[in-house]
């Protein structure tokens, strides 16, 4: 019950944020009503959603997939391509994309899950890498290559068009995060979810209980992918395009970092990890050009203005001293 109240309050606060003319200086350029700040927050919310989706397959089921960028990128690129070349409107494009992606996820999953452990990580990485290379080399000249693929704005509902409607996009991102949480939560608390966790702990024992792990692993994989693809389609709207950066292995590892950062195996932990990661990567360079960091000697200020350096070090410290992620730190504080 406490959890539900906390969730409700958090969502309420986040929902009301765009109406609050307060800001956080240095971290954000404007207060919470400004489009710039809202866009950053919206991105962070989308990342929270994708982190939660990854938590289902990694945190709960224990499948170390190095290819989670793939469904996310497919969601963004797929939806955009359907809008551009098939002329579908945004909501319909999402629906069609999800259908197509679902089939693909089952196929890829069935193939990849024939391996386990490191080999599984490698296969998923390979698939993601293949797509990244496909986007970069862009043989059919429809994917935009390195420059990315701007969104087909004419297919976007008026509600979300234009800088003036950034608020609505923010709320869409929030709705996505909440939706993802609810779906993921439903899944992991179900009987199937218990099996996911059992598979993570000891797959042999699951077999001895008379269950076949494969269908469950495939289900976790597919659900996880689908939620990521959905997040990708919203991300498309938030950043107004699909870019090659979200196809890279770096990004797929970043998703892993997000989840572990926040706390694997706890949905709200993953959400926090994704959100913090988003804010950090988008805003750290701004903080870094602030006077405080500028005053430091070059060899220090250089790396400190690199978000990935700060994140990397933070991540290392967490893995060494607080493997439960940021969320475990909070629990500790609360208990102390």
């Amino acid at each position, binding site marked *: 019950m406490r959890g539900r109240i906390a969730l409700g309050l958090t969502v309420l606060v986040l929902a009301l944020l765009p109406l609050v003319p307060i800001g956080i200086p240095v971290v954000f350029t404007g207060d919470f009503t400004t489009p710039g700040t809202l866009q950053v927050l919206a991105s962070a919310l989308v990342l929270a959603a994708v982190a939660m989706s990854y938590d289902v397959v990694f945190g709960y089921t224990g499948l170390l997939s190095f290819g989670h960028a793939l469904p996310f990128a497919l969601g963004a690129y797929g939806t955009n391509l359907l809008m551009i070349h098939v002329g579908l409107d945004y909501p319909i494009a999402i629906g069609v994309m999800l259908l197509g992606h679902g089939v693909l996820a089952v196929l890829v999953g069935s193939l990849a899950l024939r391996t386990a452990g*490191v080999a599984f990580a490698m296969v998923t990485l390979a698939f993601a890498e293949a797509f990244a*290379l496909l986007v970069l080399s862009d043989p059919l000249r429809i994917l935009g290559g390195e420059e990315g693929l701007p969104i087909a704005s004419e297919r976007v509902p008026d509600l979300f068009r234009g800088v003036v409607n950034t608020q609505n996009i923010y709320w869409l991102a929030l709705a996505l995060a909440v939706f993802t949480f609810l779906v993921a939560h439903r899944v992991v608390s179900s009987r199937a979810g218990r099996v996911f966790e059992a598979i993570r702990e000891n797959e042999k024992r699951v077999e001895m209980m008379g269950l076949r792990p494969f269908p469950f692993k495939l289900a976790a994989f597919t659900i996880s992918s689908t939620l990521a693809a959905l997040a990708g389609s919203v991300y498309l709207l938030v950043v107004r395009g699909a870019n090659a950066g979200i196809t890279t*292995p770096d990004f797929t*590892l970043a998703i892993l970092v997000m989840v572990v950062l926040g706390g694997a195996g706890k949905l709200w932990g993953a959400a926090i990890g994704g959100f913090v990661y988003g804010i950090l990567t988008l805003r750290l360079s701004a903080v870094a050009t602030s006077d405080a960091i500028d005053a430091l000697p070059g060899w220090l200020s*250089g790396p400190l203005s*690199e978000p990935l350096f700060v994140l990397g070090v933070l991540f290392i410290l967490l893995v060494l001293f607080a493997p439960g992620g940021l969320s475990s730190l909070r629990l500790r504080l609360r208990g102390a």
Partner: protein
Amino acid sequence: MSSFVLYTVTGLGLAGLYFLLASGLSLIFGLMSVLNLAHGAFFAAGGYAAWWVMDSFDTVPAEPRFLLAVVAAGAVGAVAGALVERGLIRRLYGSHVRQILLTIGLGMAAVALMGGWFTYNPRLMDQPAWFGATTQLVGANIPNSRLLILAVAIVMLVALMAFLRGTRHGLIIRAGVENPSMARALGVDVARSFTIVFALGGLLAGIGGALGAVYFNGISPSLGTTQLIFAFIVVVIGGLGSVPGTAVAAVLVALTQIYVNNYVATGLGSIAVVVLLAVVLLVRPQGLLGKVQP
């Protein structure tokens, strides 16, 4: 015909780079079950060390300077590897997942560190003049740099095999890759070999980085990371923990990449490699020469 020779030698040169990067990875995973995702950072660090030597000692003639650069690259890699193992990895003994996660964070931070220090623009490295010249081989004009890389890789392969086959440390590593518990039951302190293997991996990757700066005409912080994907594919195809397997797989992967890029279509080479990986995994998951995973 001459282009075939050119592609083949270029491919073998690339294979040399892959081997240098992949062999360390393979040993580290084979012995310690650690997927070292920071390995690309060792590569880049070696590349920058080499670049720095070439840049700073410009009064020294190019050839001995380059030799010094390669040695420096190897040394930097080895030290980095040893420090990472002793200082970080060792603290997470027993949890492979956390060790992998640590290397992910480390790789991220190390690349960003180099980016902060050197910027992300590729730095061109001074090279001996004859690297850029070509040699006539079977009717084709082969860039000397490719031949050099191949030569260095072969030397390192031979040296590595000699170490593994001819020294007690090498014996311990080979046994530990197959069955670390039994090695311990014989009184062998396998953990001490972990540092050696990490240092060895760093050494090889560092040298790879110095040569990579030659092959790719410049060093950038993320160079190691982009090549790391291929290195991992080589490791998996060759068989985790098998140095001969890594050598064979490196040749297979590099030649596939170069041939497809040049005879089919540019850009498809990497995809062909990925397909190759998928095929190997489905048909023979333990790789060409690897042991069956427990």
